[in-house]
């Protein structure tokens, strides 16, 4: 078990712009960090640099306090689960699992015992005599996991291990992986493009885009306090709503104008934003923070909208409505009785409002 520190790590491939740029990342001993982001964001390159398959162009990688930049993969004491499992097709499952231990010259009896133990834990004992070609995707994934666990490494690296599984199996394996991590609390770096995996499995989520780290925080923090517009829009389904807005300062204090509504910002929020030299902002509201307005006028801003699309999901309903020329996506509890064309009044929960500077797209509040 070891901690991981990446300092100023950059990776340039010949003739292309940086795949990873100035990455600073610290992972504590035993932590489960998910590196997430869209395709091409640099997450797999980062993982490969940690594994030793790529050398950083700049910066330093430390695992367990030791600089690993020039250390070959076989000497880093890591285990990796590949997206395509990378099981040796000409060996039986038993030999696949025992491969690493044979290299380390473990005694035959202990190899057999450990292989059987892990196989039992992962439910793959009946498969030990078969070859990878005879197994299903889920079974192969468990074997790959077993091979990594048997390595007893100081760090686990997982490269989109669930992406080739069907949705039901993926959900099941998410739970199993967390359970395994609880049993073997090894420092883990898990790479995925799926935000659901990130949010459900991680102790902390590192969100990357364009080779740069956008934010690293606990899943709840990422959701409630996104550091910029990209983070806010990547996390959360349906996507957060963005509207152009304007901050205005007057004798009465600070007010925010958006969607033809004007709302005074009192209290701590107003006090925080007042001194900032910002006028043009992007206003963000998550779909669940927009509700059907009650009959009585409350304190919250209300606006009239026309329903365009209703998506019943069973436990909740997504409603896409139009306010003037803006499209608003809302999440309501099930059974709204709404249909396309209905005119509704929407109430925005100001306390959950997220304001972003229009130029820098950084989160202001």
């Amino acid at each position, binding site marked *: 078990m070891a901690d991981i520190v990446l300092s100023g790590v950059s990776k340039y491939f010949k003739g292309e712009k940086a795949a990873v740029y100035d990455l600073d990342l610290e992972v504590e001993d035993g932590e489960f960090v998910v590196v997430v982001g869209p395709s091409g964001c640099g997450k797999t390159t980062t993982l490969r640099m940690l594994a030793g398959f790529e050398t950083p162009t700049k910066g330093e990688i430390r695992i367990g306090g030791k600089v690993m930049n020039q250390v070959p993969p*076989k000497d880093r004491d890591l285990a990796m689960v*590949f997206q395509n499992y990378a099981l040796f097709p*000409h060996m039986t499952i038993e030999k696949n699992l025992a*491969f690493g231990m044979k290299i*380390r010259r473990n005694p035959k009896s202990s190899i057999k015992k450990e292989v059987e133990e892990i196989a039992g834990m992962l439910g793959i004992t009946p498969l030990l005599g078969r070859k*990878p070609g005879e197994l299903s995707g889920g079974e192969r994934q468990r074997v790959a996991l077993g091979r990594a666990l048997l390595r007893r490494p100081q760090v686990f690296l997982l490269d989109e291990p669930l992406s*080739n599984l069907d949705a039901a199996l993926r959900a099941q394996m998410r739970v199993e992986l967390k359970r395994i991590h609880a049993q073997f609390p090894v420092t883990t770096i898990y790479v995925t493009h799926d935000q659901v995996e990130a949010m459900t499995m991680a102790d902390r989520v590192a969100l990357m885009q364009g080779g740069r780290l956008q934010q690293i925080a606990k899943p709840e923090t990422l959701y409630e306090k996104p550091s910029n517009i990209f983070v806010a829009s990547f996390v959360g389904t349906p996507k957060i709503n963005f509207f152009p807005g304007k901050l205005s300062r007057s004798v009465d204090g600070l007010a925010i104008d958006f969607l033809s509504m004007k709302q005074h910002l009192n209290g701590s929020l107003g006090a925080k934003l007042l001194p900032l030299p910002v006028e043009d902002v992007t206003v963000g509201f998550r779909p669940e923070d927009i509700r059907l307005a009650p009959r009585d006028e409350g304190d919250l801003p209300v606006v009239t909208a026309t329903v365009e699309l209703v998506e019943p999901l069973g436990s909740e309903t997504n409603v896409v409505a139009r306010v003037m020329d803006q499209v608003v996506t809302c999440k309501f509890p099930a059974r709204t009785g709404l249909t396309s064309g209905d005119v509704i009044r929407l109430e925005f929960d100001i306390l959950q409002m997220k304001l972003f500077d229009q130029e820098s797209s950084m989160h202001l509040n």
Partner: protein
Amino acid sequence: MAIEELEIPVLDEEAPKSDGYATRRIRPGLFQGVSVNVVLALLGVVFLLPLIWLLDASLNPHASAALTTPAWSLKNFRAALAAGAGGAIKNSLYLAIVSTIVATVVSTLAAFVLSRRRVPFKASLLLLILFLTGLPVTLLLIPIFEIFVHLGWVDSPFYTSLVLAATSVPFTIWLLKNFIDQVPRELEEAAAIEGASELRILWRIVIPLAMPGILVASILTFINSWGSFLIPLVLDANPSSQPGAVGIYQFMSANGVVHFGPLAAYSILFSAPVVVLYLICSRWLNGGFAFAGGVKG
């Protein structure tokens, strides 16, 4: 056309049933089938005729260039063995086995490096290797002979087999590189993460998966060396180390007369090991690639 005017054909139960398309196909199809088979049979006969003659001549004590009724005598085989067929086969085996081992080892290592590692001017190097596969060995024999004389390597079966290996190496490197290219790199990365060194990765992962290619390369080198005439003739003048392809000439050059019977028997004896090799290896080669299951997609 209005829908009401559309005529829907009704099946006439009384009309004679014709399976129109099938009937139309049978006659031309039959002609095509027969003519193709006749042509193939003729081609087969053309290719098989020399082999049939070979068998016939080897069993006929009065064999000639013509195809006769077999006489069923083993006299020719005895003559061939007396003339040194056994020894020649042994010499050929030595040359072929040594050259195959050397060429396969060298080519596998070279192909692995060319496939997996960053080599300066790799594209030019590969093009050069490809060009060398077409280089006629006759161009090189005189210079090689001079070098051999200088080094004292003439009349040595071992050094002769090295030259035979060298003539096969460009082609086998090219062949093996393409096979090794198909071994997924992820498997090597997985092995590296497990703690395997480069040699172990080559030995335990790459070679087993590229085995069909290695077998093909070995067989081709073996056959190439087995039938080699010019190189052993020039580089090894020692009659006791003559391989079969050189030895066969003794039945032809003496007095301008060709002794067809012993020549045919000698040829059959000389071909036997290669035929056996082919029969053994064809079963292994049917296994094909074992990648299915190792890597998804």
